């Protein structure tokens, strides 16, 4: 039994794929509807439209309108309470032209089986993530991102698991699984294990992060290979964006992963029928599930497909970093409680009584106002920026963001006029106490939700936060503080990411990439609700500004 056992089906699948070798996307809705209906599915379409806050230069779109087409294969004997989803994004060009063919072939094969206990929804979404977001919102009757979509006419019960296919050629040398989703959320580890188990069984080479795993864990090079794979996963998770169409499912507690076919220069190639057998096996396993995948870990890092680091191992590392902040706060608290005897400045003794927590309110408010400006100004005033400067909207947004960020650096010189207790020893200690505790809580909460983001921020911010005082050498520490600020961390991450993927870039290209990363981050927030941009603009940046204030206290 299986996809290869029937020669007629094998031939039908191959003919479908070769016919589809020409790019079909630009979304032939009518052809898809007709083909799916011919396969015996219940076919429905959904129209959606969205105007992006500013043009997306990576994908070259501004006003997005599209149609999703999906066909539901009803389980022959089961009640319609549960469903599985198989999706293939339809992007214009050669990007994903084989996935739809494989999807239709699988639909044809699945229709003839009697053992399906869940409905299977075959979804072809247009404009990848935007279409997927529209479909998911329509399916679950939520509207969180302000998109405009037509309601779904057909539904299939609560979705238990989903797989997204990306296949650009009809033969592949390896299959890659992509797990990182929106806001760094990951599917249950059992889904990755399922993929790996089937790859072993069918004999397909499988990879994660596009890297083949090595068996020599003892040697230095083998170990560093694994560490690099894990670092790639950390960076992808920290970016908070969804690295495949599956990432948007995770928010609805649906375990999902993306399977990409990679065609590189290896001798041994697997054809689409083998990939189809692998997917068929995975879907049969998911079909036999009685409850949602929940037995294995939800928080993990994978140095290779057969090894994982669970939250129990990596959280203590972060915990130790957070303890540094707490110890520093304790130290400051003790210092504040027992004021040292002053023999030079009698005025300071009188002023000590007047400084309390309220005195730090001013720097706090001003920092957060700057953060709010960083969050709101770039998108709001892009038209004004475009009028005055000769830049495109995207560049206007990004450059405004960088401008506001850099402008915040000038604040300490101006806020001093507003606060009482300026220049006092007591004042900066209170401010630092509040700032350190604020940073500790912020990093802790971030690490719980998106561990990689929290860890990277902790690595860069905790050392400076602990050591910055008005008494350290100003120029050196100012430079260090700027180098370790979130913006520069992002810049370095971009270079390191490219390095890890074995595609190092020159400084020019790196800078352009950095600008596009910022614009993508802002777009992700507006389109799908990614929280990285608001977190950094509204929380991490003001916190960092507080430390900048402390540095320039006098």
């Amino acid at each position, binding site marked *: *039994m299986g996809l290869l056992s029937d020669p007629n089906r094998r031939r039908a699948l191959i003919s479908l794929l070769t016919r589809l070798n020409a790019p079909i996307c630009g979304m032939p809705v009518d052809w898809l509807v007709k083909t799916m209906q011919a396969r015996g599915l219940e076919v429905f379409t959904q129209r959606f439209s969205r105007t992006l806050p500013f043009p997306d230069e990576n994908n070259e779109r501004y006003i997005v309108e599209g149609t999703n087409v999906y066909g539901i294969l009803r389980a022959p004997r089961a009640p319609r309470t549960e469903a599985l989803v198989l999706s293939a994004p339809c992007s214009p060009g050669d990007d994903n032209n084989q996935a739809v063919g494989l999807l239709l072939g699988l639909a044809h094969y699945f229709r003839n*089986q009697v*053992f399906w*206990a869940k409905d299977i929804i075959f979804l072809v979404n247009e404009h990848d993530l935007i279409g997927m977001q529209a479909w998911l919102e329509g399916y679950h009757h939520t509207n969180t991102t302000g998109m405009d979509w037509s309601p779904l006419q057909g539904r299939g019960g609560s979705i238990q698991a989903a797989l997204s296919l990306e296949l650009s050629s009809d033969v592949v040398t390896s299959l890659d699984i992509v797990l990182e989703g929106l806001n760094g959320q990951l599917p249950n580890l059992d889904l990755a294990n399922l993929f790996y188990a089937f790859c072993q069984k069918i004999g397909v080479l499988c990879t994660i992060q596009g890297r083949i795993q090595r068996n020599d864990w003892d040697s230095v090079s083998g170990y560093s290979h694994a560490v690099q794979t894990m670092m790639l996963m950390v960076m992808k998770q920290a970016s908070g964006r969804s690295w495949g169409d599956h990432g948007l499912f995770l928010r609805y507690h649906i375990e999902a992963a993306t399977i990409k076919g990679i065609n590189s220069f290896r001798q041994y190639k697997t054809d689409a029928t083998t990939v189809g057998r692998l997917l068929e096996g995975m879907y049969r396993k998911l079909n036999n599930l009685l409850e949602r995948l929940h037995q294995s870990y939800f928080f993990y890092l994978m140095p290779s497909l057969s090894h994982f680091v669970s939250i129990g191992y990596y959280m203590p590392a972060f915990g130790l970093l957070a303890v540094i902040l707490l110890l520093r706060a304790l130290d400051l608290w003790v210092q504040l409680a027992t004021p040292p005897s002053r023999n030079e400045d009698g005025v300071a003794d009188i002023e000590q009584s007047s400084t309390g927590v309220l005195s730090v309110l001013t720097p706090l408010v001003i920092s957060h106002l700057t953060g709010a400006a960083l969050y709101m100004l770039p998108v709001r005033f892009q038209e004004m920026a475009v009028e005055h400067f000769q830049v495109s909207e995207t560049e206007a947004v990004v450059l405004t963001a960088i401008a506001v960020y850099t402008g915040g650096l000038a604040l300490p010189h101006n806020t001093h006029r507003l606060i009482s207790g300026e220049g006092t020893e007591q004042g900066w200690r209170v401010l630092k106490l509040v700032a350190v505790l604020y940073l500790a809580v912020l990093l802790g909460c971030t690490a719980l939700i998106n561990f990689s983001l929290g860890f990277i921020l902790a690595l860069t911010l905790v050392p400076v936060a602990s050591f910055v005082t008005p008494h350290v050498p100003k120029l050196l520490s100012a430079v260090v503080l700027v180098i370790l600020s979130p913006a520069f961390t992002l810049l370095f991450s971009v270079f390191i990411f490219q390095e890890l993927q074995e595609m190092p870039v020159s400084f020019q290209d790196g800078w352009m990439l950095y600008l596009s990363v910022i614009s993508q981050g802002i777009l992700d927030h507006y389109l799908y609700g990614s929280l990285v941009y608001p977190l950094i603009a509204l929380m991490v940046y003001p916190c960092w500004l507080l430390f900048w204030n402390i540095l320039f206290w006098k």
Partner: protein
Amino acid sequence: MSALLKRSCSHNMLAAIIMLIFICFCVHFQNTAGQFFSSGHTNNWAVLVCTSRFWFNYRHVANTLSVYRSVKRLGIPDSHIVLMLADDMACNHRNPKPATVFSHRNMELNVYGDDVEVDYRGYEVTVENFLRVLTGRLPPSTPRSKRLLSDDRSNILIYLTGHGGNGFLKFQDSEEISNVELADAFEQMWQKRRYNELLFIIDTCQGASMYERFYSPNIMALASSQVGEDSLSHQPDLAIGVHLMDRYTFYLLEFLEDIHPASKSNMNDLFKVCPKSQCVSTPGHRTDLFLRDPGSVLITDFFGSVRKVEITMEAIHLTDPILHPMSEEVQEKTYSYVDQLPVSEIIHQKPKQKDWHPPDGFILGLWTLILLVFFKTYGIKHLKHIF
């Protein structure tokens, strides 16, 4: 004289020979008669229980159905079998061959067949129902097919399978039966004379723990694994996608397929089923509570329902029929059914009792009283104005 002696001698010898033959015949009859009543039971019952549900526990249902099949084939009728299956595998949505339950790979043997009679199905298989079946304490409305109507001359086979542990057996993912409860249930059965001899077979992980606590006489127990060992499943079928049978019951089924109603295999052969080389776990048995020697106990004493038949060549004379003395004078009373519904009461109903209202005059009187009291307090001269 010597001729007479010789004749008497030969007569004596003949008489002695005839006596010897007669005695031999008697002894032979006694042996046959002894054999006839050696086991002490007159009827057979079987209680077969599968305690786990869900598709991946397909093998437990297949285990129970294969024992059911053997027991039915060897002669126990459905009326004497209580079959309890916790889930329906044949009609499960995930079954690629609906209406079948296979026990051998490549779908060689369908143990579901056409004439399976399941007495307790689905959520009815609970610890409470199982213990009620064993002890006979069922509500009066329970149909006969769900009762274990055994007596003190019944040999009962009890087969349990599912997931178990040290001292317990899991029912339906939500409750357990412990070995103490089971032992007490068997003691109740003994005291109520509900069995003559009992054979208890259990195929679960750590199954031997379930028979450790038995203390009632005439119980023989077999288990598929010792305490601390797991019972393993046999083979998966790649088309159906689940494991089809457990090892112990698989080899038990193979052994039972060779048994026919006239076979003379005894319990010692049953103890040898599935040695460690085949089963990976070590099957165990317990015979200390059993009064007879296991070597003299036939397999068909428990697995089959062997009717003892004695063939006789003599004619039996029946007496004349007894005539009914009052057959002519007996009145033919017509009988009719009692009314199921009291129709007469429904049609000629008493009027429904309305809510009680006080009679109308009462309200008038009440107001008069109020007025009188009013005028009494405020002076009688006002009353004069009215009257």
